[in-house]
């Protein structure tokens, strides 16, 4: 028995909607006969791709006027929820997704399950699998209460699949007054450019961490990534230290990556990092500390100084081409 309706929070990207959003639409269409998207900052052309992935309608919020997107979407969903009665609502595990789920949850007293990595339908009830302890254990959980459950789902938990459905209809709604939550406003946006393949889509990711010792050493990471046609990444530690922008961060609060090979350089392997990269097909780790947790999941571990290993590796790869 499938569910009748699932709502999905769809986030924009430079190419239309984010890949994670398409993953969630695809997953939702496997569980419910009707899937409706809620989005912002997108044009009506996204109806096409959302329709192909299984959505029949997309509600687009207009007139945010700087209001934070998660807050605005939560307000729009809250106003319609009792009349339209979705069975579940899916959010991506992003800053906006978590903001939206949290606001909606507290507004309507709805429970949230976070870090969802898989879902199944058993006896008409959604059963979620949630990664805990950095993914070392998996908890299966369901809601006891009635009313729609909120699910915050990690990127790359489902494969996006265009099944060729017709375009989703587009309904534009004004955000309107959303009370005190709407007093936080974006006054200016800054884009920190990065080049090369996208971190969460690149077949090769080379990441650096604290073990690099200093910001200048990150150049080795960028060079190796470029030589392998990959993307440079980073641990949270060096993002927080200001060496590279947040867009480079791999891990729980950064990007989830599943490349063909992940090369971790000077990264010890905090659980919050490993949760974002342990799905890589192959893992190579280079670290001075033989006891670093990263070696427990590496296919090839090199106990050594990144400042000695990387220059030689870079030369060796250069000499081949």
């Amino acid at each position: 028995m499938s569910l009748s309706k699932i709502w999905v929070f769809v986030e924009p990207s430079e190419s239309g909607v984010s890949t994670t959003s398409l993953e969630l639409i695809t997953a939702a269409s496997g569980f419910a006969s009707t899937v409706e998207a809620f989005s912002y900052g997108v044009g009506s052309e996204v109806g096409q791709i959302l329709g192909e992935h299984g959505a029949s309608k997309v509600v687009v919020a207009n007139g945010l006027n700087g209001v934070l997107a998660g807050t605005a979407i939560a307000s729009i969903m809250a106003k319609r929820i009792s009349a339209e009665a979705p069975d579940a609502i899916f959010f991506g595990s992003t800053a906006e997704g978590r903001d939206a789920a949290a606001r909606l949850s507290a507004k309507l007293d709805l429970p949230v399950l976070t870090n969802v990595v898989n879902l199944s339908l058993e006896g008409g009830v959604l059963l979620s699998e949630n990664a805990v302890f950095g993914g070392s254990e998996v908890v299966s959980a369901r809601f006891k209460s009635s009313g729609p459950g909120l699910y915050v789902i990690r990127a790359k938990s489902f494969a996006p699949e265009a099944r060729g459905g017709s375009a989703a209809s587009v309904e534009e709604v004004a955000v309107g007054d959303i009370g005190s939550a709407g007093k936080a406003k974006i006054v200016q946006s800054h884009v920190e450019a990065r080049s090369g393949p996208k971190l969460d889509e690149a077949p090769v990711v080379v990441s650096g961490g604290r073990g690099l010792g200093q910001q200048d050493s990150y150049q080795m990471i960028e060079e190796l990534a470029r030589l392998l046609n990959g993307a440079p990444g980073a641990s949270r530690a060096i993002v927080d230290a200001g060496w590279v922008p947040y867009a480079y961060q791999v891990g729980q609060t950064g990007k989830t990556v599943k490349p063909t090979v992940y090369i971790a350089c000077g990264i010890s392997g905090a659980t919050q990092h490993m949760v974002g990269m342990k799905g890589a097909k192959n893992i190579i780790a280079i670290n001075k500390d033989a006891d670093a947790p990263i070696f427990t999941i590496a296919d090839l571990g090199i106990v050594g100084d990144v400042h000695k290993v990387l220059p030689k590796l870079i030369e060796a790869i250069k000499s081949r081409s």
Partner: protein
Amino acid sequence: MNIAVCVKQIPDQSVPGKLDPGTHNLVRDGKLILDDSDSYGVEMALQLVDRAGGGEVTLISMAPNGEVSGIRTALAMGADRAVLVSDPSLAGSDALTTAKVLAAAIRRNPFDLVMAATESTDGYTGTVPVQVAELLDIPSVTFAKKVEIENGILKVQRQTESGYDEVECPLPALVSVTAGVVEPRYPSFKGIMAAKSKPVDVLDVAALGTGPLTTSQEIVSVRAAEERASGTVVVDEGDAFQQVVEFLEAIKVI
């Protein structure tokens, strides 16, 4: 400037976490420490109160068992006092229940700003701060990497996928910070001594007046995730780069 800082006391993260096989709740025996993620919010709050020229930093925490060792660490950094909601009925609380408890505890005293970490290190749901903000009916700004207050306006640099946004909002408000926001101080010896006599109000759920709190999710089962087996580990003797080259060849990346 009065700031309430939500802090969590967690098991030492160098020891792997465990779930109780019967209740499926997180096992929290042993000493609890201040979540490292919270030290940034505590430091930021201390600096903001300092710059404002006065006020108090109040720690707000919840624990099922009256544990205070992690709270003492934050008091030793310089926080003025703490409110700990401690009640056996809170064991296994979900994020929304936690937020209701924290919001009720915060509401007991006047505040201008509520500070929290982006997410805890052990549970990392990342929803509690914004749930608290909604329950208190105040605006929230998450993922802050820089926080300032000017003329009663909170000014935040908020991390985004492509860079950062400058976000402003009037007080009272909630802000959740990343570990990049500020460098936390280490408690001084004087601070550690002073922390021993700072007030910690311990309340039970009945004293909060929240009404009944129920956790509405149920854990059906727990299993170990498929483990990645560790592979070959070699100690670099000057030529280990060769093994990396061979590995990349074998998987046809080069």
